[in-house]
């Protein structure tokens, strides 16, 4: 068949298909209109194959190829029901994922909490050590923040309620930024995550050891215990996600390094979504609950302990029953 005849015979179908495509791409397609879309797409593929095989001109083949590509993108796109999956992710999939990756979670937790507790004890026993970890300016700043005489706690000594809002924004930006960094740096064979885990552990540990040692322990611990449950766990989990990336590169097993990295990245980004949820909760608690001084420290310790227990139970036991709600 000559090219012109071929074209004039099928031109109308191609136009109709292009119209369907435009509708689909703009999300305006009604179910009835596109019921025959797969059929139309396969016919277009056949036409394209014929046109190539018969040596028709590239000004015919190329537009057909573009149509086929657009059709391919519509027919085979990966749909993610984000809203439908969100609930089952929070209720079951996220804690399951954390348990499934327990090796990385354990290593990350050991690195982070180990360096935190270790340096806190050291600074408590040898107070001068703080100055080799945190600069004197920052130490003074921290002392100002947690001075027992201040009425409200957190970044500034005196805070109005509008400042809660300000600190919420600040905590979201700062903490999720740190979590993202800790995760992404894991791509460097896991070394980056190890670095950030230990680094953050050292800073937090040194500050808490120092503040306890100079007698600001009450204000400091009652401030951090509540949101710490979510925040510190989240940093450790972000590190675990990063370690997972690094391990995929170090020991890819039967796969190529690229393939193994792709699979690990898909898993770890899910973990990171959970981390983001944790950090949003943490920022909320930190801005609106932890910073009040109206409530006595004992209540705060109690609530903090309940929150830690909650996080532990959630990660350890949520989604264990076989018929998890979905």
């Amino acid at each position, binding site marked *: 068949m000559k090219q012109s005849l071929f074209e004039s015979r099928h031109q109308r179908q191609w136009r109709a298909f292009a119209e369907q495509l435009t509708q689909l791409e703009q999300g305006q397609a009604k179910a009835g209109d596109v019921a025959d879309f797969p059929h139309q797409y396969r016919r277009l593929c056949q036409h394209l194959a014929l046109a190539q095989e018969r*040596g028709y001109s590239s000004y015919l083949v190329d537009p057909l190829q573009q149509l086929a590509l657009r059709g391919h993108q519509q027919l085979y796109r990966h749909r993610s029901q984000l809203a439908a999956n969100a609930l089952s992710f929070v209720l079951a999939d996220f804690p399951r994922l954390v348990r499934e990756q327990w090796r990385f979670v354990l290593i990350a937790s050991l690195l982070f909490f180990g360096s935190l507790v270790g340096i806190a004890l050291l600074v408590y026993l040898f107070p001068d050590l703080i100055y080799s970890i945190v600069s004197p300016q920052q130490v003074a700043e921290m002392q100002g923040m947690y001075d027992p005489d201040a009425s409200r706690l957190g970044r500034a000594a005196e805070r109005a309620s509008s400042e809660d809002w300000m600190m919420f924004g600040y905590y979201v930006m700062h903490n999720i930024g740190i979590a993202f960094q800790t995760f992404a740096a894991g791509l460097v064979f896991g070394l980056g995550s190890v670095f950030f885990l230990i680094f953050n552990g050292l800073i937090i540990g040194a500050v808490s050891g120092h503040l306890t040692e100079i007698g600001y322990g009450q204000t400091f611990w009652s401030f951090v215990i509540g949101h710490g449950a979510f925040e510190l766990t989240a940093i450790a989990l972000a590190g675990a996600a990063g370690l997972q990336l690094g391990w995929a590169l170090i020991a890819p097993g039967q796969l190529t390094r690229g393939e193994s990295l792709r699979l690990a990245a898909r898993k770890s980004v899910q973990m990171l979504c959970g981390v983001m949820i944790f950090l949003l909760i943490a920022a909320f608690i930190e801005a609106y609950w932890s910073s009040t001084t109206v409530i006595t420290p004992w209540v705060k310790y109690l609530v903090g302990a309940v929150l830690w227990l909650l996080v532990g139970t959630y990660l350890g036991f949520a989604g264990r029953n076989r018929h998890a709600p979905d």
Partner: protein
Amino acid sequence: MPSAPLDTRYQIETPEGIDLPLRPAGLVPRVLAFAFDLGVRAVVMGVLLVPLALLGNVGIGLGALLLFLISWWYMVLFEVLNQGCSPGKQVMGLRVVQDDGTPIGWSASLIRNLLRFVDMLPFGYCIGAISCLQHPHFKRLGDLAAGTLVIYREQPLVRPRIPQATALRLPFALDLSEQRAILGFAERQGELSTERVHELASILAAPLQVSPARAAEQLNGVARGLLGPA
């Protein structure tokens, strides 16, 4: 269809058994697109932060949230919601797709943009640039992990008219690549100077058994003959 050795096209084979070529974009257009995005972000931040700063503490809180959104989510939101194009990519005619040619989703976009942090190391996108230059499909580390590809968007083609000539039929058979070459010659004549057209056509003067001066006309006739009557 044989592909030339220096071709950077990336073929995806669909379940229908056809090959769809994608054209991966190299380092330079991607850098320019990123620079454009950086500029857009700087301008948006500048414009929005001034009124926010006047709002006092609430404004500072909103500003921090905005900074967070723009620095970590700008690319992700645009890529997922705007057919794989951030504004910079839109301007440069680029687009991000998955390795199999399908539109990019949330998780892939999140991976490639979070790992941008590593591509930026140790300074000025060094690792990303090296990875991009040595990879056959110009992927940076984020693309490798997410399984994504930055390609040129397909531009709609304007079809040129074939010069008028009487349809001819050659006394010998042409193979497929010869047919396409002759059709290509006829269709793209408008882009060449007359001298070049004659120079190219005269190469075929001997097998066509015409004088070099008439070779171009002869080829157009053959092309007409191949297309057939409309």
